[in-house]
């Protein structure tokens, strides 16, 4: 595990001080902030919880998907483009160590970039100058859900990105795969959405809705963890396949 820790630390620090990460995180924060402000403005006077204003809109989740796709591109397509993937393949590092190290770095970058979302509620209270209780438990639950969903999207992104060798097609593929996961509901028979059993596991949009309300569903936790494990395993196999291609 020491190699995983080393790769994780290296990739995290390398990306953290890159202008591209700072820029994309700033754009994400600004866009989500604007979205929050718009939701507050549009739905003022209605009986809507703060959490739904913050995490409940479809636009917010599309922003998450876009940003995760951008951050995931740092994993493999850029390495292929610059030729450094060959260095990794020749290094005394196992494929799973590389995948896990890079995934942990990407996930932590996403967590770091979404932390400003926790500041919006206190900011709103300060702007309104009215004392009202901030629903911290719901906010942190929603953030935890967001990190879980973003983790799954990042794992999917890594697997998809390994198939493509240039950043732009990889970005489009990662974004499309994420959209597919989010809107899988639209592609499955109607009855599943009415009586969701295992179908719930693949419907990210439903999970996102629950987390946004501050509801932690164990089915979602299991689904996200299983999905992440599956796509990370797939990434390892795809990386091994590069030695055969």
């Amino acid at each position, binding site marked *: 595990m*020491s*190699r995983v820790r*080393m*790769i994780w630390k*290296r990739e995290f620090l*390398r990306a953290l001080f*890159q202008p591209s990460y700072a820029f994309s995180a700033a754009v994400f924060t600004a866009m989500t902030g604007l979205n929050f402000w718009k939701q507050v403005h549009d739905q003022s006077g209605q009986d809507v919880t703060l959490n739904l204003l913050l995490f409940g809109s479809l636009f917010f989740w599309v922003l998450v998907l876009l940003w995760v796709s951008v951050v995931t591109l740092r994993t493999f397509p850029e390495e292929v483009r*610059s*030729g*450094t993937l*060959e*260095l990794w*393949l*020749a*290094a*005394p*590092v*196992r494929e799973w160590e590389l995948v896990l190290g890079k995934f942990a770095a990407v996930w932590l970058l996403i967590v770091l970039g979404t932390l400003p979302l926790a500041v919006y509620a206190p900011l709103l209270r300060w702007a309104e100058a009215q004392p009202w209780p901030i629903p911290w438990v719901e906010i942190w639950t929603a953030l935890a859900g967001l990190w879980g969903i973003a983790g799954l999207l990042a794992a999917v992104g890594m697997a998809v990105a390994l198939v493509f060798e240039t950043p732009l097609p990889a970005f489009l593929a990662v974004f499309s795969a994420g959209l597919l996961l989010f809107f899988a509901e639209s592609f499955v028979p109607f009855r599943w959405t009415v009586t969701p059993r295992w179908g719930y596991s693949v419907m990210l949009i439903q999970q996102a809705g629950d987390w946004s309300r501050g509801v932690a569903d164990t089915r979602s936790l299991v689904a996200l963890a299983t999905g992440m494990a599956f796509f990370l395993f797939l990434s390892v196999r795809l990386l091994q396949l590069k*030695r*055969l*291609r």
Partner: protein
Amino acid sequence: MMTVVQLTRRFGGRSAIQDLTFSACEGEILGLVGPNGSGKTTTARLLAGVLEPTSGHLSLYGRSPLRDAIEYRALIGYLPETAPAWGELRVREQLMQWAAIQGMPLRRSLLQMEWVLGVCGLEPCLERRIETLSRGYRQRVGLAMALLSNPKVMILDEPTAGLDPLQSETIRETILRLRQGRLIVIATHRVEDAEGVCTRLLVLHQGRLVADGTPDELRRRTGKTETLTAEIRGCRELVRERCRSLLFVEAVEVGGEEEWVRVTLRHRRGTDIRADLFRLAVREGWEIRELREERPPLPRVIASLLGGSP
């Protein structure tokens, strides 16, 4: 130490390498030469463990890249064709991080880094970002990365590609310095680069090994005769006549100034007539001011081995 037996690598239906067999020991500088598309880079990648062979066997000190992948790769320092590096990092950061990836403790990393910086001449640009370095310095960074773990085997793919003659010479000198105690494999299409550096050449053509030997052995395999040129002070006709009588000499050409005769002797391949010529000169009372073997240039030898004009 390095054993390669019937190594084959296919991409789809096309064989990039077919039945490659050779072995090599430490102290050797092995040159993989051949035209573009002959399989040099594929061979280098197979040896470095980047690619897996379709069939055949490959081992380093008894380690297989398939069974003992980590131990195998730990024995190797690899410089890929374009000397890739993480451009946004400084040279020091790159080397320290690469040492950590190799699993080296910090203390050893620092010592090794100091050593490779000296060997590769990187001290002046230690704090510079790699993307701001010239092609030659980036190549040196790649070489330093390959050397960092003090590997027993170094595989260098086109180490002088894109460099000016001065930079190429610096890289060649560095490679020669590194020879002690390790096996170095160089894949290059610039045969002139291999000459003077490589102790042994593997000539590849369309994925097959067509010749294996030292540069001199390969020279001897091409052409039926070798050429010796001398400048002798003596009577032109007498020099021609006496030299023609030497054993193994097949043809004699004379020219040059009035006093100093320039004589070119074509003798049978694999024979050495220099001692006989000296004895003849002593006997006849001639003075010799120059004596040299005319060796055909290596590129021409390789072209000849590949079926081109000698």
